[in-house]
C-alpha cells in the first residue's frame, strides 16, 4: 500500500516535471521563433531588391529608384568615427578598473557611472548631442556631432567587454612580469593587454554593430534624409542606413513604389549587423576554447 502511494507520487512528480520542462522549452522556442520569423520575413521580402547597383548607386527620382550607397558610406563613417573616439577611453577605463583600482569608494562610483550610462535611453543621448555638441560646442548637425554622440553611447559596452577580457588573463601572467622587474605599466602593456586583444576586438565588433544600427542618437545630431554627394568634411551632414530606413518607412508618400527599396535597405542593415554579431560570438567561443591557460 505504502509502496503504491510512493510510486503514484513518483509518477505524478514525473508528469508535472514533463509539463513544466515543456513550458520552459517553449519559452526558449519563442525566442528562436522570433529570430527566425524576423530573419525569414526580411530575407523573403528584401532579397529581390539586392543587387550590386542597389549597393553602389545614389538614390534617384525622389528616392523611388536607385540605391543606398551614400547611406552605407555615411553609416560607415559614423561607426568608424564612434569606435575611434570610444576605444581609447574604454580600454583605459577597463585597464584602470581591472589593473590599477584597489577597491573602495572610487571604484564603486565609476562602476555606478558606467552602469547608469549603459541604461540611459538612446534618445536621451540624442538630446545630449543636440544640446551639447550641436548647440553649445557649435558643431551643428554634422558627422562629428553624430560620431561623438555615438561614441558616448557605445562606451559602456566597450568598457565591459575589455574589462572581461582583461579579467580573463591569469594572475600568474602579471606576477611573472612583475617578478622579472617590469613596472606595472610595462607589465600591462607587454603582457596583459596582448593576451586580452581577442576579447577587446570582440567587444569592438559588438560596439560597431550597436553603433551602426542606432537611429535615435543621430536623428538630431548628424543625419540627413537625402544628400546628392558623399560627406567630405567632419561638419557635413550624412545619410545613414538606419535613418534612411526609418524615413522611407514612415514618410514615403508612395509606399508601394518604394516597398522593395525599403525591404532591401532593411535587409542590408540587418545583414551587416547579424554577420558582425555572429562573427563576434563564434570568434569569442573559439578564443575561449583554444585558450591554453
Amino acid at each position, binding site marked *: 500500500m505504502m509502496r503504491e502511494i510512493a510510486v503514484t507520487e513518483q509518477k505524478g512528480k514525473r508528469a*508535472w516535471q514533463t509539463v513544466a520542462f515543456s513550458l520552459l522549452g517553449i*519559452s526558449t522556442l519563442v525566442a528562436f521563433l522570433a*529570430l527566425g520569423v*524576423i530573419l525569414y520575413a526580411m530575407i523573403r521580402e528584401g532579397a529581390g531588391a539586392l543587387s550590386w547597383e542597389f549597393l553602389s548607386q545614389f538614390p534617384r527620382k525622389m528616392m523611388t529608384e536607385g540605391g543606398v550607397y551614400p547611406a552605407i558610406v555615411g553609416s560607415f563613417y559614423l561607426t568608424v568615427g564612434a569606435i575611434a573616439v570610444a576605444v581609447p577611453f574604454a580600454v583605459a577605463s577597463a585597464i584602470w578598473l581591472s589593473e590599477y583600482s584597489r577597491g573602495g569608494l572610487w571604484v564603486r562610483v565609476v562602476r*555606478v*557611472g558606467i552602469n547608469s550610462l549603459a541604461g540611459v535611453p538612446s534618445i536621451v543621448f540624442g*538630446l545630449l548631442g543636440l544640446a*551639447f555638441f550641436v548647440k553649445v560646442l557649435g558643431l551643428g548637425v554634422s558627422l562629428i556631432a553624430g560620431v561623438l554622440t555615438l561614441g558616448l553611447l557605445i562606451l559602456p559596452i566597450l568598457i565591459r567587454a575589455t574589462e572581461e577580457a582583461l579579467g580573463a588573463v591569469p594572475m600568474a601572467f602579471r606576477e611573472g612580469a612583475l617578478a622579472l622587474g617590469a613596472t606595472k605599466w610595462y607589465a600591462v602593456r607587454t603582457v596583459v593587454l596582448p593576451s586580452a586583444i581577442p576579447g577587446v576586438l570582440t567587444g569592438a565588433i559588438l560596439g560597431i554593430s550597436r553603433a551602426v544600427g542606432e537611429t535615435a542618437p543621430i536623428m538630431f545630431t548628424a543625419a540627413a534624409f537625402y544628400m546628392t554627394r558623399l560627406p567630405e568634411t567632419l561638419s557635413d551632414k550624412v545619410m545613414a542606413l538606419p535613418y534612411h530606413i526609418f524615413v522611407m518607412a514612415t514618410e514615403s508618400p508612395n509606399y508601394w513604389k518604394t516597398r522593395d527599396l525599403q525591404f532591401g535597405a532593411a535587409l542590408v*542593415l540587418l545583414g551587416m549587423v547579424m554577420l558582425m554579431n555572429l562573427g563576434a560570438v563564434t570568434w569569442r567561443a573559439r578564443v575561449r576554447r583554444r585558450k591554453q591557460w
Partner: protein
Amino acid sequence: MRSRPLKIESPLADAPVDLRPISQAGLRGALLLLKERWDRPVFFALACVSLVALGLIIFFIFREAAPLLREIGLIRFLSGQWTPTTDPGQFGALPMIVGSALVTLGALLLAVPLGYGAAAFIAEVAPGWLKDVAKSILELLAGIPSVIYGFFGLLILAPAFQHAFSLPTGRTALTAAVLLGIMALPTIASLAEDALTAVPNSYREASMALGASRWQTIRRVTFPAAFSGLIGAAILGMGRAIGETMAVLMVAGNAPQLTASFLKPVRTLTGTIALEMAETPFGSTHYHALFGLGALLLLTTLITNGLAEGFRGRLARKHGR
C-alpha cells in the same frame, strides 16, 4: 703579492644610487614620478570619462528642461494635454506617461514569464550544446537594431494585428507592446540566467537528496534563492522597454490621446521626442517641454537602473561572489 682592488665592470654599478624616498628626492624624484608613476593617475582620469559623460547628460537635459518650471509649472506639465501646435500650445505629459506605462506593462507581461522560462531552461534543463546555441540566439536577437524591429512591426506585425482584431489601424499599444516584449526578452532572459547560475550547486544537491524532482528543485529552491536577481532582471528589462524609441515610434500609432486601451494608438515619451524635436524651434517652450520629457525618461531609467543593480548586487553578496 698584493691583491688588486676588486673592480666592478658593470656600468650600472658606477651610477650613483639615490636611496632617498621618492618624495624627498627633489627634482630628480619628481622626474622619476613622471617617468614611472604617471600611469595610475592618468588611467584613473581616463576611467572617469563615463562619469563625465553621465554628468553632462544629467546637466544638459535638466538645464534645457528647467525653463519649463517657469513657463508651465510642474503640475501642469505632469497633467493636462499635449497640443503643441495650437496657440497657445498645451504641454502636458500625461498622455505620454500613460502611453509609455501601458506599452511597457504589456511588454513586461509578455517578456517576464517568457524570459524567466527561457532562463530556467538554459540554466537548469538544457544540455550543454543546446545551452550554447540558445545563448547565441538570445545574443543575436538582442543585436537586431531597433529600427529593424520597428520596420518589421510596421510592415508585417501591424497589418497582421489589424486583420486579426478587425481594427481601423494596426498601429496600437498592443502591437508596440508585443514588439517591445520580443526586444526585452533577450535582456531579461540572459540576466535571469546569470541570476540562476549564481545559485550554488549545493542548494540543488541538497534538494534532490531530499527526494525533490528537478522541477520541484527549480520551483522551490533555485527560483527563491535567485529571487532578487530575477527581480533585478525584470526591472532592467523594464528600463530598456521604457527607453526604447524607434520600434515604438514606428508601430504605436502616436496619437497623443489619453487612453488605457491596448487596441488604440498611443504615444510614448520617447516617440514624442523623436517625432517633434527636429521641427521645434530652438529655445521655444515646445523645445523645453521635449527636454522635459527627456528629463522624465532619464530620471525613470536612472531609478530603475539603480534598483536593478541593487537587487542584482544583493544576490551576488548573498552567494559570496
